[in-house]
């Protein structure tokens, strides 16, 4: 394990820093903090949390599911179009579609051992097309106002059913991965797939399961968003993907796979949600917050870059052993 990037301290640090920044908002803006700001932070978390969890789980397994935003869009659209009679049909259709998409992708990736990037990219394109074809490229409105009011009503001042469902799923994921051997196995196939296979991990099944979980979670995220907005947008754009990726990386997941935990992911998305709320309260123009997230993601990806690390290590050893590098090697060899 490399020093300097422990999977637990990065999410904790990110969370602590953003909480402090959030608490001190009144000191650097004109507006005071209200309980609504906390509620709103959890609403942002509800909007992107499940996407982060979906993406994060596949990243722990050493894969990268670009299609999450496509599934998110399809889930939202199915919720609206199949759920006009009763919300449950829409939800069921969305979850079923998410599971089917995950099964197809996981099956292809695990059975044929194809890299996940091109497969999920192709699915992403196809799913955006499907959503657009389903809606004729238009935003579809959801007429069931009762559900819309229900998912966003405030509970205990700070929460809504939507944010509680999202938080609950993080807790469930954390419990499942901590208490069963799946957590260890997931990290094992992300870290060293061949070794995991030799050690008796059913790699294929686990990959398919991870992609199904990813599909269901993304579709549910889309469903909840559609319920909340009372409409479904055929093209969510790339912003949800960017923010979810940033949150997952802040949450202690590594691009190389094999590291991360749902609680870390929760801390990551909570930090991002707090940042987004701070940006909203401070009334910063949108492009500034965009630049901010770009900078954040850029810094993380450069820190995570393998060659940079080895170059720094090389530089450090050269500096440390600069006086007599030859003799020191000689001595240690003699001993």
């Amino acid at each position: 394990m490399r020093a300097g990037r422990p999977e637990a301290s990065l999410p904790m640090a990110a969370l602590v820093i953003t909480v402090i920044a959030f608490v001190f908002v009144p000191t650097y803006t004109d507006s005071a903090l209200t309980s609504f700001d906390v509620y709103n932070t959890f609403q942002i978390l509800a909007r992107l949390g499940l996407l982060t969890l979906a993406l994060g789980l596949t990243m722990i397994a050493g894969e990268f599911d670009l299609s999450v935003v496509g599934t998110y869009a399809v889930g939202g659209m199915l919720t609206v179009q199949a759920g006009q009679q009763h919300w449950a049909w829409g939800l069921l259709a969305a979850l079923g579609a998410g599971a089917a998409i995950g099964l197809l992708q996981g099956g292809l990736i695990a059975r044929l051992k194809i890299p996940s990037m091109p497969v999920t990219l192709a699915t992403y394109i196809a799913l955006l097309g499907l959503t657009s074809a389903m809606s004729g490229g238009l935003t579809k409105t959801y007429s069931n106002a009762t559900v819309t009011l229900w998912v966003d009503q405030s509970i205990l001042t700070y929460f809504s059913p939507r944010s509680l469902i999202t938080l609950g799923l993080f807790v469930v994921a954390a419990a499942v991965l901590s208490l069963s051997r799946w957590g260890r196995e997931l990290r094992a196939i992300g870290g060293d797939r061949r070794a995991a296979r030799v050690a008796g991990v059913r790699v294929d099944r686990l990959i398919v399961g991870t992609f199904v979980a990813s599909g269901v979670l993304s579709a549910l995220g889309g469903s909840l968003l559609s319920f909340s907005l009372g409409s479904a947008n055929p093209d969510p754009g790339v912003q949800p993907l960017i923010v979810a990726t940033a949150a997952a990386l802040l949450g202690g997941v590594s691009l190389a796979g094999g590291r991360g935990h749902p609680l870390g992911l929760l801390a990551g998305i909570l930090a991002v949600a707090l940042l987004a709320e701070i940006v909203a309260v401070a009334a910063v123009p949108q492009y500034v917050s965009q630049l901010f997230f770009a900078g954040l993601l850029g810094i993380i990806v450069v820190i995570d870059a393998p060659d940079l690390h080895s170059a720094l290590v090389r530089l450090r050893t050269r500096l440390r052993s600069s006086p007599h590098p030859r003799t020191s090697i000689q001595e240690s060899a003699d001993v």
Partner: protein
Amino acid sequence: MNVMSARPRSAAPIRRPGLVVDGVLLLAVLAAIVLALTTDRFLTVANAKAILTSASLVGIAALGLTLITIGGSAVSLAISPSVAAVGMIFLSAQSLGLIPALVLAVACGTLITGLQGAVVGYAGANPVILTIAASFAITGIATGVSGGSTVSPTASGYDHLNATPGGVALSVYVLIALALIVEWTLRRTGFGRSLYLIGENRRAARAAGLPVGRTTAVAWVGAGALFAVTAAFTAAFNTSANVNLGGTLTFDAIAAVLAGGTAIAGGRGSALRTLAGAVLIAAASDILLLRGYSTGVQIMVKGVIVLVVVVTVHLRTRGSRA
């Protein structure tokens, strides 16, 4: 025990899908040809020109992406914002004259994409995440500088890019010329050969003493120049440019590269394959358009084509290695 039982099971299906895949592919190609021939107005000169024209803008950007992909940097997800930003620069520099504006556009394009390439090449940063970040940054900066408004051309020199010598759009000639140049560079120069080796096996390339960082950065610089050419043509065609100028170009270019059969893992592929991929997707979209399908269906079919080609290429290359 597990190892023993897992081996034959995973090894056996490798060879057989090769044949099955060939069969399925042949049927798919035949079906597509029949579909094309039975589509009204498909086999006309005007339609062929329309396909080539719509393939040309995506194709030029896809040629740039081909350099990135062959070099083992997977894909850039920042093509659309780069094209939008460069397009805005190109139109606002029209008062300098067409050629200086073009030079400025290409310079800015190489700078934007080359910087990302330097980070990918020298530091080994993950290109997908880095370009996601870059796309955010470019859009943010472009919005900030332009104030979110649309840029209109300051002179009409750009209109020369919309010329149609011999009845075919200028961008088609440029696409073919650039495809030949890129192909020649990849096949005949030392840079091209190192790029293939780096894409195939970065560690081996480094051990062999190849300048991995520099070659990767140069490939991205070339890609940036090609994105800039696409940007100039797109901006000239639209006669105005804003941050949405790039549209779905990122995914269209990736689709063209992958549909051409270039492996995303790097080390394989060619400019001519990308050219074929761009024309294939343009032709498929054209058939669907002529048959009255919506934009959504066209995008969906594009995704399915990419998926099928990715799976096919993967199975075939694995079959030939076994």
